[in-house]
């Protein structure tokens, strides 16, 4: 008989200090913060003035005859009033106990504290923010119209393959919403949709025809040339929400659900906070566009949002921390969040109901 190893389990083996992680890389390609960027506030609730079109002479001109005046006569006087808006963050959190005995058993092979810190901080925190923003953006209540507009032709698999008036036509649906938003005073700059809707949009006959145009040879529709086709209408970003979350019970077979549903395509103006600009007709710091993802952090006295969260910060924002609980000889990993997708201006959002099936 030769010398042999009886089984692979009892023979010599290398113990790898690596872990197999299911779902690794699943939180890439999040789009929420591109629509509603992070916006730190210093107290749990913040208040800011709101300058509406209706009450602050927005988008007016003075060509009317009543503004003509003879030298030495009075000027026509305008009136204005300042409204206000309030954002109040929600505090939420979760934690997990890692017994020291378990950590020691896995020592030198797997750092459980590092693993759960990263899972809480990058994955759970990231997916939660993305879900809250998706729930806010894909919500007819947050549109100026209060309803979505049906796609002219439903986005079904059959309608994808029809060219002309009887086929689905996403480009025309999007252009119609761009025109609508401009007509209510806002210049849209993004289009957002789910991954499955994007697959149907990019492969439908009418999109292929529009993007190829008349003089261009055969080409596939990708995000670059689709966006190029919409650039004429002011669209600067095409955002494809293509991430999933697990809504199964602990330990059960994972049930993965899209964070961005197939029900809508959003057309709107991204949220932005910035300094005033003479070019845009305002010279005060503005919180423009649809809104921001406010979170409570960096406590300090006064009303200016803090960018330095060091000296006077405290646990109110989005964070991961660990603390020892010695009566059970364990370390506890905790994730805390206070994200609030705050809709500042619902004129900046219009929804297309895709009737995807």
């Amino acid at each position, binding site marked *: 008989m030769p010398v042999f190893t009886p089984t692979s389990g009892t023979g010599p083996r290398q113990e790898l200090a690596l872990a197999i992680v299911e779902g690794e890389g699943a939180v890439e390609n999040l789009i929420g913060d591109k629509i509603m960027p992070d916006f730190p506030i210093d107290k749990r609730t913040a208040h800011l003035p709101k300058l509406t079109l209706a009450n602050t002479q927005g988008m007016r001109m003075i060509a009317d005859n009543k503004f003509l005046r003879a030298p030495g006569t009075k000027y026509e006087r305008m009136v204005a009033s300042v409204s206000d808006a309030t954002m109040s963050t929600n505090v939420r959190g979760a934690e997990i106990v890692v017994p020291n005995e378990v950590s020691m058993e896995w020592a030198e092979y797997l750092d459980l504290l590092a693993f759960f810190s990263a899972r809480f901080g990058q994955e759970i925190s990231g997916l939660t923010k993305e879900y809250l923003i998706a729930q806010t953006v894909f919500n007819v209540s947050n549109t100026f119209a209060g309803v979505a507009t049906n796609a002219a032709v439903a986005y079904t698999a059959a309608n994808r393959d029809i060219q002309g008036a009887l086929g689905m036509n996403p480009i025309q649906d999007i252009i119609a919403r761009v025109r609508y938003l401009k007509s209510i005073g806002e210049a849209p700059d993004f289009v957002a949709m789910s991954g499955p809707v994007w697959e149907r949009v990019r492969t439908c006959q009418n999109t292929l025809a529009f993007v190829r145009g008349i003089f261009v040879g055969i080409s596939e529709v990708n995000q670059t040339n689709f966006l190029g086709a919409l650039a004429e209408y002011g669209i600067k970003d095409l955002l494809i929400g293509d991430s999933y979350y697990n809504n199964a019970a602990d330990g059960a077979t994972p049930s993965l659900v899209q964070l961005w549903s*197939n029900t809508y395509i959003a057309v709107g103006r991204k949220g932005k906070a910035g300094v005033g600009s003479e070019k845009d007709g305002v010279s005060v710091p503005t919180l423009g566009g649809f809104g921001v993802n406010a979170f409570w952090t960096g406590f300090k006295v006064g009303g200016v949002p803090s960018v330095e969260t060091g000296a006077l910060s405290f646990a109110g924002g989005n964070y991961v921390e660990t603390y020892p609980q010695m009566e059970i000889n364990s370390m506890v990993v905790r994730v805390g969040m206070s994200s609030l997708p705050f809709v500042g201006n619902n004129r900046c959002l219009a929804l297309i109901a895709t009737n995807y099936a």
Partner: protein
Amino acid sequence: MAEEKKINSVKIPEVEVSPVADASCPPPPIDDQFKGLCKRVSDGMEFAYAIHEADTYGRTHTAKNSSLFWQGVESEFRQLFDKK
């Protein structure tokens, strides 16, 4: 030769598999799932409505007509629409 004939006579099973997209995202109701009519309180516009299992975002009520589409929870529906 007899063996080969037997192999070739196996009938390929016909099955249907749901697309991944349908399984991973509860779709809004299809047209024949709308069971009643309602009017929008603000302007009297007519909609068909459906009550269904919660979608991805927890919404259980959908209203729709040829041009417009609305989806929300029961309290919002009661506030915005009157059942006929």
